[in-house]
């Protein structure tokens, strides 16, 4: 009897709520979904406003990388990808690079397309970058941002209604709890900003992603790029995801499955060949995006992604072996690797290994992680190997260019880390004499020099 009353109560409440919020289940208020005759509503205007505000925030926070070589290069690829297509209302395409190690690209509904330094460092050539821009611009052309935002809002409202009904139902507490947890996930994402921002960064629906892939491939062909580049991009993304533990995964990684997307791109590429060999040249691409790769390596080293730093710096160094800057960056990366291996071990790649890595990431600082690794003989051996590689690279950079100050600084850091204080002091002194007070780093090195001289027993003497 009690159960029947509770059930009746539940149904009545549901009816009351659904009458109060008709938009949750009916389609009467649903605007036209077609991108061609898209009509702006107040909700869409808010999204547009938010997108512009986000652009401002990125600029204000210094996240946008402004490089005189990279920017025109990116703009030219973007322009080619857009081609002669009519630009939708309220869209002004802008292509920008974000200083962010997360491998990611996204487009805001106002036409701002962002590619992270993380993604630029992973890609191999211009065609692959064009593939990414083709995909992203498709989201803008098809108004996916606005449409997804409307969808998220509707889902959130429905969830809230279910929540109220569930609270009154006989199985109330348990069901309410489970819905609340599910609701929290939607809310948490949406709370970052409006739904579009969440969707832009973490991915649209499966259908929208598929449509963007498809339109991106057409745009690639029309711009005379090889559509096969999109398949290779997915391949690279899939390989790279196993290099480090990532606290947040972008949509490129798993939504929909990369293998499916790759297959689709390959099928298209098989029937649409284009001949533009210069766009596949790895060296030209690396030259143009080198500022992003260097920035990325520094960011990787600041965010516990030493393996990625080694990987990116190795590629750069292999392409430009005579450039001391890249050699020193690679040496810095090996030095930062410490007791870690260059690649994750088979054990680390297992499900259990990944779970352990995740646990460590959140419970240990990087210094504690290094200490734990050094407790084992393998860790000590890895440290010795990495330090030896770093030393060799620093010395090689100095052999090619004896006046390259950063190599002396790196060697100083390395020797200090190894406890060779007097050698470290010599290197720091060389660095300071070369930069003559012009470097941003001279104060830090002066302090380090004083410290190592004290430890080595030498008299403290700063220039």
């Amino acid at each position: 009897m009690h159960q029947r009353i509770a059930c009746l109560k539940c149904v009545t409440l549901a009816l009351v709520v659904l009458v109060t919020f008709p938009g949750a289940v009916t389609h009467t208020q649903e605007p036209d979904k077609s991108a061609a005759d898209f009509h702006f509503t107040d909700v869409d205007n808010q999204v547009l406003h938010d997108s512009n505000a986000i652009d401002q925030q990125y600029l204000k926070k210094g996240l946008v990388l402004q490089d005189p070589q990279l920017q025109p290069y990116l703009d030219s690829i973007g322009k080619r990808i857009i081609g002669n297509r009519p630009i939708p209302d309220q869209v002004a395409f802008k292509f920008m690079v974000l200083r962010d190690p997360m491998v990611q690209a996204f487009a805001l509904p106002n036409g701002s397309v962002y590619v992270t330094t993380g993604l630029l460092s992973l890609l191999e050539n211009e065609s692959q970058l064009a593939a990414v821009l083709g995909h992203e611009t498709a989201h803008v052309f098809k108004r996916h941002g606005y449409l997804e935002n409307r969808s998220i809002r509707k889902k959130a409202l429905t969830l809230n209604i279910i929540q109220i009904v569930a609270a009154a139902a006989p199985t109330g507490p348990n069901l309410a709890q489970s819905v609340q947890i599910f609701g929290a996930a939607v809310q948490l994402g949406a709370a970052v900003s409006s739904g579009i921002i969440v969707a832009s960064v973490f991915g649209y629906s499966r259908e929208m992603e598929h449509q963007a892939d498809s339109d991106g491939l057409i745009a690639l062909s029309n711009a005379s790029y090889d559509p096969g580049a999109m398949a290779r991009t997915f391949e690279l993304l899939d390989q790279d995801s196993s290099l480090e533990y990532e606290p947040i995964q972008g949509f490129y990684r798993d939504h929909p499955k990369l293998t499916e997307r790759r297959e689709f791109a390959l099928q298209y590429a098989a029937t649409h060949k284009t001949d533009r060999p210069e766009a596949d040249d790895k060296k030209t691409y690396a030259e143009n995006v080198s500022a992003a790769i260097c920035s990325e390596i520094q960011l990787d080293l600041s965010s516990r992604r030493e393996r990625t730093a080694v990987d990116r710096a190795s590629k750069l160094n292999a392409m430009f072996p005579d450039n001391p800057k890249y050699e020193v960056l690679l040496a810095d990366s090996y030095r930062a690797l410490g007791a870690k291996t260059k690649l994750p071990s088979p054990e680390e790649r297992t499900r259990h290994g990944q779970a352990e890595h995740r646990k460590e990431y959140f419970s240990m600082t990087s210094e504690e992680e290094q200490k734990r690794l050094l407790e084992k003989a393998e860790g000590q051996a890895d440290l010795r190997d990495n330090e030896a590689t770093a030393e060799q690279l620093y010395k090689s950079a100095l052999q090619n260019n004896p006046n390259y100050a950063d190599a002396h600084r790196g060697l100083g850091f390395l020797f200090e880390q190894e406890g060779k204080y007097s050698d470290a002091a010599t290197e720091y002194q060389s660095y300071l004499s070369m930069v003559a007070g012009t470097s941003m780093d001279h104060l830090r090195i002066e302090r380090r020099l004083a410290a190592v001289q004290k430890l080595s027993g030498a008299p403290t003497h700063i220039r």
Partner: protein
Amino acid sequence: MILKLRLLAILCAAGFLTVNARATTPSWSYENPKVSSGEFQIRNVCMMPVEGKLSRVTMKGGQGMSNESDNWTAALESMVEAHLKTASVQIVQATDPMASGASDEEIRQVIVQLNQKYEDVANQLNRHPKDIKKSRFTLGDDAALLPCAAKSDVLVFVQGEGQVTSGGKKAMGMLVGGRGNVSEATLVLTMADAKTGEILAFARLMNAESFGEKFVDQTESVYGKALDKQFERLRVGMYLDKKKH
């Protein structure tokens, strides 16, 4: 019937009092003994760019509050700076090249790197702030790359995060229980040694309101006192010269 009405009135009054009692701003801080003992003195600070994020949670999901977030960030920045100045602390901005010859782009890169490092350390710091005493957390001496670091004792990171809950959502929160029935905001201040990068102090100020969202436009009245209290605890600026409690 009259008894029921009286009971309802009493409950409402109790609810009102509870809400007002909750409108205060509880705050906590943790510091390294070097700071509390006065061995490390905080008289000059370098302000890292303040980050304030507000979002609105309604029955239709989350919504951005971009304009409000911008204003809130500015309000938080000027409030923290004003209280530091009151405590006789000299302030420099992290973006200031200070005749170092460093370009804006170079400074921006260092700021982003330090923020990355801070976010990484924050994973453990937010959960175990007490470990500051054990010198467990550091940003490394990359902190000294900022030109402002030369003339500062600490780098100050200020982060605010607030959630404004709509009336409908609050009502629903009351119906189904849970934490959905309040608007809340947290302000976190972290101080790192400007030369070595070691995290020396951490303060957390929290505010939850069942009615209204004072923290959005009345930052001073919501956080002012709590901020002073924490600066005094951490012996920042002129508080260093006062006798330790």
